[in-house]
């Protein structure tokens, strides 16, 4: 049963537009970082990202931002490192205004470190398809792990079958 039609952290909301200053700061940082190495093209990518963030929320903005950057700018490894500062700040900005800010920040940061390490590290050892598969599997396992922790905490595991 789906109780709500949810638009992930979409900012097209009057209240949010006023109170969501961390996200606007993150968009500003993103624009700055992209402009620093790609100039006007970088600003176009930042504008696309900002619009997507307003309409679809953070995940959509991250996806569109990365695709646009590859399509328009063709960044180097150094450019990627600089650009990611902007995107990561956008992700962390949504965590700051969460009612469970500390939990969200810790979990997001840990996941970012692990997933980014796998994404970048695995591509240096394995072919791209293996690295991509490894990343997706890691994300899925992480989410299943949290799911199991939840079941234990909430007492929703009602004993196992005994031999």
């Amino acid at each position, binding site marked *: *049963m*789906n*109780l*709500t*039609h*949810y*638009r*992930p952290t979409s900012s097209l909301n009057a209240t949010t537009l006023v109170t969501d200053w961390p996200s606007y700061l993150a968009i500003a940082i993103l624009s700055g970082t992209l402009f620093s190495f790609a100039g006007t093209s970088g600003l176009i990518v930042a504008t696309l990202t900002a619009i997507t963030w307003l309409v679809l929320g*953070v*995940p*959509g903005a*991250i*996806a569109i*931002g*990365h*695709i646009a*950057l*590859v399509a328009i700018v063709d*960044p180097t490894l150094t450019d*990627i490192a600089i650009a*990611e500062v902007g*995107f*990561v700040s956008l*992700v962390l900005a*949504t*965590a700051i205004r*969460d*009612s*469970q800010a500390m*939990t*969200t*920040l*810790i*979990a*997001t940061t840990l*996941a*970012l470190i692990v*997933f*980014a390490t*796998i*994404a*970048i590290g695995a*591509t240096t050892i394995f072919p*791209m398809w293996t*690295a*991509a*598969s490894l*990343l*997706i599997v*890691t*994300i899925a396992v*992480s*989410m299943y792990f*949290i*799911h199991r922790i*939840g*079941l234990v*905490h*909430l007492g*929703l595991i009602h004993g196992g079958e005994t031999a």
Partner: protein
Amino acid sequence: MRPTRSTVAVGGLAILLALLAVILADVYLLVGAAIVGAWLVGRQAAFLRELIDLDSDLAIVQSVDDPTVAPQATTRVTFEAIRYAGERLRCTIEANAPVAAQLESIPQLTLIPEFNEARTDTTITWPVAGRHRFKPATITATDGLFEETLSKGPRPTVTVHPHGRRTFHVGAGGGRIAGAFGTHRTDATGPGFETDHLREYVIGDPASAIDWKATARHLETYVREYAAETDREVHLILDHRPTTDIGDPGGTAIEGLVSIALAIIETTRHRGDPLGLITVATDGITAHHHPTANEASLGRMRRHLTDLTPTRTSRHTARSPVSAPTVDRLWEEQNPFTDTLRPFVTDRGAYRRHIEEQPLYHGLETTIHRRHGPGLVVLLTTDADPTELRETIRLARRHEHDVLCYLAPQVLFDDLVARDPTAAYERYVDFEELRRELTAWQGVTALEVGPHERLAEILEAGRRRRTVVSA
């Protein structure tokens, strides 16, 4: 923790980025997939934290206004939810009424962010007799990305018992009484809640007993005494011999007596007094529950009473109430009459043995031997055997128990009033004399139990007779 369609969409985005990374051989897109995945994991962790808080700080009330009802009766159910945490989640809370309950719609509450309280009342009809227990409420919580279902809340029980389809009159001499079974006081003072009196402080009194307001008023140190409260054992002795199997369906004597017994169990349960139950039939004791205030044991007593039916066989014979003293005096005389009769009477203990074999008497004797100190004996029986009744009450009084006697007069349950109203009234007068005789004894209260309408008919017959006589 189930993902919603939004979560699937976000996961799809991460997979799409990973696929594009493979197709375009660009690690930057794979990093993008990693960031989307990290965002999703962060949201999931936040949802879990919120859910755990909600689980511990969500108060749910499921209560029924009347836990004991007759079939087809309705009860009002209050369903309320208040949360003190997990305020970001949207919660749908659904009551889980028993299968046997008939309700217009399932009570449902919705808590949305900024609305943390909800309440609804509904009416439930109970068509099926038995014990029906609610299940905990089902809570479905979601933040839009994930959702989880929890069970929480109290499980009230409604007992629908077949007895009591008709309301019974309980009273004395045709009049109703508000309540014969209530609180009890001791003459002693001690720890308690009800103020007994104020007195001046004497050395040795604890400082905590000082009533500072009274001390300030009187300029002397005063202490407040409280009425001591004690637990008094209550012994229910219920007769379900064939003599109680009289009356119209739904309004028989046994049903009236069982209704009262159930009400007494509820009262003692609220007061915390230990209660024992003995049921007696023709062949003796059919169940013996020792005095206890334990909730589970009281529940067993309730179930036993709910399932109780009158026994079918009877070997009961009543002996004349004046036989014992008369016979005793008879044997002291020496004359041809007694000389002739003496061989036919085995011994002078025959009457006593006969009484001791009577189920009601034997039932009380059994429980009296097991306890110490005066308590309250509640007899629930008919007026079919006044001799046994008197002797049973005497036994209770010998052990200094107070006696509360609920009597179902047989005349209130048979159809004599329809056939011969005058004869029915005379039988009722006989019963009333017995009841008054018993009530006149110290420490004994006797009350009548019967259908309202039959009693009204008999009293009306009496009024008519008096009118005719006076005319």
